[in-house]
């Protein structure tokens, strides 16, 4: 139970905190704007300085002047757009026997034609995961991160499959993934061999896209990245590394803590425009095969209140090909317009992949019934049930 009366004073405090924060944000944005301009004018010099100084934070790599903006080109029509998404039932330590479940969706739309849409989802039950040996732990203690990593891998595998099966000769195609293509979350499992295996398994599918030269992109909604902000911090001398010596001076304060890349690019991007393309400096990419490293740009998705900024990630072969880049830009923008702020194909893929609470329950019931019929009493089910519906 939540007693709202007790929160009154805390809410007043929260209000004044928010006010201070907004004032600070305005000052931060003003400084960021000045630094971005300086960086834009002397971008090659800044890039060389960053390479030499090797700041410890992840600093976006520039491939063109960073404040460049590009209007949206026309989306080609007809065009094939494929997307996948996934969801999971994580292993439950209260349940015996241990397992986890992945549900991966696949959608393919042939826009500009009246060909039928393809929408489906394939569930898979994992209880003999070979990775468990490598992980060196019983399956029931497998952390959520590993299940998520396997899910991401399956999403990319199914996306590559869709890009192959839905392709129509002579018709352009864009394959859309949800979230990031940079597997930074794999780090931190404290198991180098497993991390390498997972990255190799993931990037083999990236390579599959590269071999066919397919337009692959992923969309990050409300991104929290700070690689461009770190670049500005470097230029402004906020990082431990020596800043470049530029002829233009920017104010030294305030520090840019809490500012995100999307806040900075929101200052310069008009509706539908995309930013310059940046290279990601994420360390995990050192393990990606040559030519599959990830670049990104920001896109202002039109909407109420000026819309929002999404981050679109593309592998190098897309970033290097102006026609593919234009196709991705136009398609993602078109998708976001139709999906009211989020790519339509991805939101349909999400709807197909999601396992609702009632469906999860139905699955548990089915599994328990099957085990019981086979004379194998599942344990722990009672605890699970009592957690769901507290009794009076």
């Amino acid at each position, binding site marked *: 139970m939540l007693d709202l009366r007790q929160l009154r004073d805390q809410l007043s405090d929260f209000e004044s905190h928010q006010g201070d924060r907004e004032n600070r944000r305005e000052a931060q944005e003003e400084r960021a704007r000045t630094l971005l301009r300086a960086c834009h004018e002397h971008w090659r010099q800044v890039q060389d300085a960053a390479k030499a100084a090797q700041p410890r934070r992840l600093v976006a790599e520039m491939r063109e002047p960073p404040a460049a903006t590009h209007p949206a080109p026309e989306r080609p029509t007809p065009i094939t757009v494929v997307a996948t998404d996934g969801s999971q039932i994580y292993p439950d330590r209260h349940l015996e026997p241990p397992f986890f479940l992945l549900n991966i969706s696949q*959608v393919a*739309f042939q*826009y*500009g*034609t*009246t060909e039928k849409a393809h929408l489906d989802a394939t569930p898979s039950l994992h209880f003999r995961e070979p990775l468990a040996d490598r992980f060196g732990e019983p399956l029931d203690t497998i952390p959520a991160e590993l299940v998520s990593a396997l899910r991401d891998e399956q999403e990319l595998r199914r996306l590559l499959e869709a890009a192959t099966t839905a392709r129509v000769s002579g018709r352009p195609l864009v394959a859309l993934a949800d979230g990031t293509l940079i597997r930074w979350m794999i780090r931190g499992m404290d198991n180098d061999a497993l991390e390498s295996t997972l990255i190799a398994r993931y990037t083999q599918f990236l390579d599959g896209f590269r071999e066919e030269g397919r337009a692959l992109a992923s969309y990050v909604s409300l991104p929290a990245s700070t690689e461009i902000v770190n670049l500005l911090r470097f230029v402004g001398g906020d990082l431990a590394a020596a800043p470049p010596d530029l002829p233009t001076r920017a104010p030294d304060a305030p520090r840019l803590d809490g500012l995100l890349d999307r806040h900075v690019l929101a200052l310069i991007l008009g509706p539908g425009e995309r930013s310059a393309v940046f290279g990601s400096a994420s360390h995990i990419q050192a393990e990606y095969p040559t030519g599959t490293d990830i670049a990104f740009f920001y896109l202002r998705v039109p909407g109420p209140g000026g819309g929002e900024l999404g981050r679109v990630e593309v592998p190098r072969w897309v970033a290097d090909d102006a026609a593919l880049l234009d196709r991705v830009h136009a398609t993602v923008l078109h998708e976001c317009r*139709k999906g009211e702020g989020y790519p*339509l194909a991805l939101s349909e893929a999400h709807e197909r992949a999601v396992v609702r609470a009632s469906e999860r329950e139905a699955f548990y019931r089915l599994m328990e019934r099957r085990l019981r019929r086979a004379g194998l009493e599942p344990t722990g089910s009672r605890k699970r049930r009592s957690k769901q519906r507290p009794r009076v």
Partner: protein
Amino acid sequence: MNDTALGEVIEATTRQFVAEVYEEADAPNFGAWVRVEPDGAPPLFGLVSHVETGSYDSNRQAVALGLSPEERAQEMPMVDELLRTTVRVQMLACEGPGGDLRQTLPPQPPGIHDFVAPCTEAQVRRIGAPFDYLRTLVEHPDPAVPVDDLLVAVLRRTYAAHGGENGGREPLVQAGRALSRLLDDDHERLQSILRRVL
């Protein structure tokens, strides 16, 4: 059965069932007779009392898109995939073990996923005099359905199955008489129903 099936039972009681209509099939009309042949049990007959088209997913609602049908098909191809038509059918007759037709509720509901098919003209003619099913319809109507409109529809169907102008009048008169008794000689109501039949 499979060839003529228009859909499958997705909810069932002994009084009524709901069937989902196959995407490629035409939805049956309001007031049409349909039959279900449960596995190993005699056929059941019911009257379509409600036809509904909407979103597949109770969490998602259809919204106005402002697109022409062609634009919709080209740019929002998933919309058609997300819509479905369901029909609610009032159970009114069943076959006995000897093949005789009983105008009463069946002893068991149909099974979920049993096939639903439209009744043939001969089957509609068979569900005729003494029109006992009209009593079930009038005395225990589905509260969500305007019963007089359903009566109009079912009488039109009976009339048509008997050949319309060439033979449909006689069974219609018989049904009218049965209805008159059921409506306690409420002539105004009976007239309003019969006026709309022909």
